């Protein structure tokens, strides 16, 4: 449209030569309030804007500031590792290393060429069919494999497969494997303790991941640190009381014994007499904590601490100690065990042989049931029950270990005379091997008992006096006589060292009855006798060979263990006898 044409437009007044002020539209008489209304509305709109601005800038600032921050701030996860578990000399027993979980978006991954998927399957160490089964296109996100080691993850990342996602996690490694596993325990895939010390100290070991607020630049570098959002807390390291070397010695001793005597299982525990620390706790059969795919209950069972058994003859020194302590007997008191059995309320209690007339030491040395029953008949049941309680039998254990059993001692008021007689030689009550070992503290120390610890102890604990030092010394002499060619534990003799202890054999209870065929052999010993360092307890469950009693299966195992342990701990020998005599037909204790 040209200028000329516009000038010629007849509809605009100006084009007709009429001035603006003369425009007829202006002549229309409009009421004056209308302009005021417009002015007011405009003014009100500006006021509203100003108020809103003031509101956003001055009063309600949080929301927008938060929104703004979320557009440039990033939260960076600060990982926290689970604490290490170490033995008393600082050797690592359990440690976590970062690994990655490999996950996938199936739809995207399935678009990749076949050879890449085959390579992925190979790196994940799974058959390709299994990988394809996992890549279900109906699912949006699937884990392919967890806890993949970093080497493999790097190779997988190099394949540049679309839709593969990796997530940081930790994997727990147990370098000592099956030797230490019943003590240390293990964690699950979420790094949570499941067994042993890993379970009991879960709270302390666990790390709490933190996070940090940062601003990243275009290249992903952190450009500005806005401070800590949540402080990461690494898990605390745990130093156990266990000694790797002694643990290995205990483990091999038990393992060899189980194989040699064709037994179902075995267990051993070594305690430090001075500090109450558990230096070794071995179980066989066992399992590898690094590969738990074929785990059975029998392998998992910690027989030292969660199983109870009837202590059998190993409890006899306790009965005798109480008799000595209450001055009802002296070491020279003699008892007539003729004719090899005793009737208690119509029931017969027998010895394996007729031991004739013996003093208290002889009763312990030959492990005479009759002698111990006669001693117990001089002691009121309540006193015996109090003794058991002081020693921790039937008491909730405070060992700091999950699943530790209390054992079972019935209240003394319900004891019938025959039951009390049975208890005197260890039947009709049950304890764990660890409880039994701990109760021998009163003999190994000077009559006091101290709490046990699975963690390294810096300060020597204060003991609770149970019997007098004199009684303890008297019982020690008797225990040493048991480990002599004339005693029931002749096979527990250790060349170069004086050892004392007591054997025990108990018939296993199968379907509520004592089994004639299945039994358990024990030995609880103290070494060396001149200055006790260790309490060693061994349990051999259901030996099926020719040798079946505690004296013939558990005692030699304990001797083997003690010999190696004393040497490993640099304990100077306290005996010049190096060639030990084991009689052809050693004395067997009665059941």
């Amino acid at each position, binding site marked *: 449209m040209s200028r000329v044409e516009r000038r010629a437009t007849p509809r605009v007044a100006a084009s007709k030569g009429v001035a603006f002020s003369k425009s007829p539209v202006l002549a229309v008489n409009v009421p004056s309030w209308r302009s005021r209304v417009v002015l007011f509305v405009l003014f009100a709109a500006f006021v509203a804007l100003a108020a809103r601005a003031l509101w956003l800038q001055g009063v309600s600032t949080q929301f927008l500031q938060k929104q703004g921050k979320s557009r440039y701030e990033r939260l960076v996860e600060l990982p926290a*590792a689970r604490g*290490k578990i170490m033995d008393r000399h600082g*050797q*690592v*027993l359990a*440690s*976590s*290393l*970062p690994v990655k979980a490999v996950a996938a978006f199936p739809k995207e991954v399935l678009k990749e060429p076949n050879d890449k998927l085959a390579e992925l399957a190979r790196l994940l160490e799974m058959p390709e069919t299994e990988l394809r089964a996992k890549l279900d296109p109906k699912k949006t996100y699937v884990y392919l494999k967890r806890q993949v080691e970093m080497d493999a993850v790097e190779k997988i990342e190099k394949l540049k497969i679309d839709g593969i996602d990796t997530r940081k996690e930790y994997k727990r*490694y147990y*370098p*000592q*494997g099956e*030797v230490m596993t019943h003590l240390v325990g293990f964690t699950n895939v979420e790094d949570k303790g499941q067994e042993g010390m890993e379970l009991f100290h879960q709270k302390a070991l666990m790390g709490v991941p933190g996070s940090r607020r940062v601003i990243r630049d275009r290249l992903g*570098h*952190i*450009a*500005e*640190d806005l401070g800590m959002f949540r402080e990461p807390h690494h898990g605390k390291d745990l130093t156990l009381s266990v000694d*790797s*070397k002694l643990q*290995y*010695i205990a483990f*091999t001793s038990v393992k060899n014994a189980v194989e040699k005597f064709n037994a179902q299982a075995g267990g051993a525990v070594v305690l430090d007499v001075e500090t109450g620390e558990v230096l070794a706790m071995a179980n066989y059969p066992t399992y590898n904590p690094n590969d738990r795919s074929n785990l059975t209950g029998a392998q998992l069972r910690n027989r030292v601490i969660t199983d109870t058994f009837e202590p059998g003859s190993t409890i006899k020194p306790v009965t005798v100690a109480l008799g000595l302590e209450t001055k009802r007997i002296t070491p020279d008191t003699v008892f007539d065990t003729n004719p090899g059995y005793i009737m208690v309320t119509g029931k017969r209690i027998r010895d394996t042989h007729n031991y004739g007339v013996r003093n208290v030491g002889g009763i312990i040395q030959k492990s005479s049931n009759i002698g111990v029953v006669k001693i117990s008949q001089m002691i009121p049941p309540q006193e015996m029950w109090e003794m058991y309680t002081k020693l921790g039998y039937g008491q909730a254990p405070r060992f700091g270990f999950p699943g530790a059993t209390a054992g079972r001692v019935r209240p003394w008021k319900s004891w019938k005379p025959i039951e009390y007689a049975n208890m005197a030689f260890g039947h009709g009550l049950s304890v764990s091997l660890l409880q039994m070992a701990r109760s021998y503290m009163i003999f190994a120390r000077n009559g006091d008992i101290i709490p046990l610890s699975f963690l390294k102890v810096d300060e020597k604990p204060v003991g609770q006096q149970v019997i007098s030092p004199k009684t303890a010394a008297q019982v020690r002499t008797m225990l040493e006589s048991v480990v002599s060619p004339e005693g029931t534990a002749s096979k527990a003799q250790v*060349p*170069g*060292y004086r050892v004392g202890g007591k054997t025990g054999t108990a018939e296993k209870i199968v379907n509520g009855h004592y089994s004639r065929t299945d039994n358990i052999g024990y030995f609880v010993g103290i070494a060396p006798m001149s200055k006790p360092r260790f309490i060693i307890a061994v349990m051999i469950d259901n030996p099926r060979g020719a040798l079946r009693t505690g004296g013939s299966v558990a005692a030699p195992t304990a001797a083997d263990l003690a010999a*190696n342990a004393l*040497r490993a701990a640099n304990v*100077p*020998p306290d005996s010049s006898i*190096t*060639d030990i005599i084991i009689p052809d037909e050693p004395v067997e204790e009665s059941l």
Partner: protein
Amino acid sequence: MSVKLNILLTAAVVGCALSVVNARYQSRHLLIELERLNQHARQLEIDWAQLQLDQSTLGKNERIEQIARTSLNMSPLTPARTQYLTDGAK
């Protein structure tokens, strides 16, 4: 007088601005360096844990005994063939 003062103040302002830019640059630079070193420290910690594990695995009593028995032909000592020396004894 007032012109000179303005020039002086302008120069001061520009100088300050430049120094702010420089300080900012330096701080970013140092932060990246710090970040890198932190990363390095974390990696070293992981390496240390790995080495501790290796030490424990290689120092396993089972392995030592195996090697001592088979490749070094050693056998456990017995008190019968041990000479004990007592400190201070003549």
